[in-house]
């Protein structure tokens, strides 16, 4: 038995084992539970890095569950894109976990650690699977865990937002199932690679049905990615969630983007008849509006966590502007920006929490209050995260946006893309400058009674690490973009993936 082959399933097995273990020991031995949670996240990171190194040779490896041959069984596909996402998920999990433990946010409820592990199980599964129905199942796993995490810590604001979040996602899941049912009825398969081949054989009578199915599927992914006009659920949900959880949720919108990048070239490629690149004409306008809405929200937000939530929407819009062109260099730039924007979004949420913990009754509202402890240090962190998010040099946001603008310059609609990116950058700069100067520079009236809390410096660790990772991403921009371009080339080469999954036929 070759262990290296079985590495592919490790990111799914590890959290599946860690979650019930953590659940069992949590009540009596909290420290042991935290240890299990950390160990599981580090093991996932190690497995993901191992897979990333393995996938460097450009071979698309498949892992057939239960040794059932594709397309009859479920396959896991580890190519460059999937392994990049796995590494990103493990890093985000460690950041969220570290912050939750340091700020004791994991003690607000009983089940933070098991839920976190189940969330990771869903995320890793969604990144790995090569089967469309299995993708739905892993979406559900990560959603169910996210419902629990979303209302972690309780409180009426969280419960209210939680109800809306659950209702929206149940409807999204139902639409996903309808799209799956249509695609299965038309092609008779659920394996993505197989579906991509069989979709060419659909008769002219069924082309309209195929188009409906394709667009429904894409709408569901757009809902997960919070593209306008399907973004309304996000700001309230993310702004009221426990900050460590919100930081982890920064990768959840990216699952929607990932699914689009994975499914559209593979299933709805050139051969797909009426559904060939069906979402392409709608994606660019939606992305442009998303970027504008997101950064307008950054401009007008009243709280730092709300601002971070809108920054997530805005960066998803910027990301989709690049994805919507469906070319190797634009998609490569998009992947670089995807990693960057996930880390930057998480950093913003964590810093909002760091501020809120120090300002007593002012919390993280964008208003000037009395000076609070370690204000310079927190202010510097906020400055770095804001620079990264809006895309000013020297951090990776600048490189990401530059790459996107350079790569879309050859496309027909480059004017829209450039205008949107430049204008939203300006709006973002002003919005963050306004928030930063109100919170960190001006001194307002001392609030009645509530003394600003003295908090240990340790809670700045997780956001500082996120900023350091962004700096590393900027320094290593060369190798990172090379990897992004290679991953993009691999994911756009649908026939090669089909050969790897189904064997030579």
């Amino acid at each position, binding site marked *: 038995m070759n262990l290296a082959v079985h590495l592919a399933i490790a990111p799914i097995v590890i959290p599946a084992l860690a979650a019930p273990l953590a659940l069992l020991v949590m009540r009596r031995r909290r420290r042991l539970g935290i240890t299990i949670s950390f160990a599981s996240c580090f093991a996932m990171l190690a497995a993901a890095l191992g897979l990333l190194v393995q996938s460097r040779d450009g071979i698309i490896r498949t892992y057939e569950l239960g040794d059932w041959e594709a397309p009859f069984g479920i396959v896991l596909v580890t190519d460059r894109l999937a392994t990049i996402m796995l590494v990103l998920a493990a890093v985000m999990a460690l950041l969220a976990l570290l912050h939750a433990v340091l700020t004791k946010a994991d003690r607000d409820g009983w089940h933070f650690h098991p839920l976190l592990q189940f969330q990771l199980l869903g995320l890793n599964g969604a990144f790995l699977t090569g089967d469309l*129905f299995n993708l739905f*199942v892993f979406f*559900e796993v990560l959603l*169910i865990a996210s*419902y629990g995490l979303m*209302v972690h810590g*309780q*409180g*009426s604001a969280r*419960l*209210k937002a*939680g*109800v*809306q979040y*659950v*209702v929206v996602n*149940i*409807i999204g*899941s*139902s639409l996903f*199932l*309808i799209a*799956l*049912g*249509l695609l*299965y*009825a038309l092609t008779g398969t*659920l394996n993505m690679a197989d579906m991509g081949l069989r979709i060419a054989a659909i008769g002219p009578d069924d082309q309209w049905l195929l188009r409906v199915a394709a667009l429904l599927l894409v709408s569901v992914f757009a809902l997960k990615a919070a593209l306008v006009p399907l973004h309304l659920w996000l700001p309230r949900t993310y702004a009221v969630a426990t900050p460590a959880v919100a930081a982890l949720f920064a990768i959840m919108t990216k699952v929607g983007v990932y699914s689009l990048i994975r499914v559209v070239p593979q299933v709805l490629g050139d051969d797909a008849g009426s559904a060939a690149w069906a979402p392409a004409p709608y994606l660019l306008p939606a992305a442009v509006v998303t970027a504008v809405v997101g950064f307008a929200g950054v401009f007008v937000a009243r709280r730092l966590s709300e601002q971070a939530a809108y920054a997530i929407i805005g960066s998803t819009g910027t990301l989709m502007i690049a994805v919507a062109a469906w070319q190797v260099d634009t998609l490569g730039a998009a992947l670089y920006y995807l990693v960057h924007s996930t880390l930057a979004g998480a950093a913003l949420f964590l810093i909002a929490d760091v501020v809120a913990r120090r300002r007593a009754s002012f919390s993280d509202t964008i208003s000037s209050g009395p000076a609070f402890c370690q204000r310079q240090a927190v202010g510097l962190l906020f400055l770095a995260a804001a620079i990264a998010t809006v895309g000013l040099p020297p951090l990776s946001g600048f490189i990401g946006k530059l790459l996107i603008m350079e790569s879309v310059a050859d496309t027909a609609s480059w004017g829209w893309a450039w205008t949107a990116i430049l204008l939203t950058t300006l709006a973002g700069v002003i919005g963050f400058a306004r928030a930063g100067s109100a919170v960190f520079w001006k001194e307002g009236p001392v609030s009645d009674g509530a003394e600003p809390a003295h908090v240990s410096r340790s809670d700045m660790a997780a956001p500082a690490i996120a900023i350091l990772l962004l700096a590393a991403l900027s320094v290593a921009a060369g190798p990172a973009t090379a990897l992004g371009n290679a991953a993009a080339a691999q994911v756009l080469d649908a026939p090669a993936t089909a050969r790897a999954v189904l064997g030579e036929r």
Partner: protein
Amino acid sequence: MISLEFLVASAIGVLVAGGIYLTLRGRTFQVVLGLTLFSYAVNLFLFASGRLVVGRAPIWSKSVTDYADPLPQALVLTAIVITFGMTALAVILMLRSFLETGSDQVDGAPCDNEPAADRADDRADDREDAA
């Protein structure tokens, strides 16, 4: 003569229409009913995606050429389990939200017929009594 396809399709259509109407209502109980109807419709739809056939062999064997497609049945089973769990979770969450905020509106707005503050107080009293 009404065909089987027409019957199932119209049933799915009615369920979806009712489900969407109820889901768009303001109160959480109606939303739960709407989600339930909608998920029933989706399950029926998934089931029908294997084509509606009567009296075929259930499991594939080499001698049988005409068989009922087993895959949608497996898919429906998965979907039923998931939607059942989801519905239970939604009910609990909405109940908690109602107890916590004193409002059973999805957007958390106060109810029309009863001032929200009174209701929240009532709930708080109830909880104290229970404790």
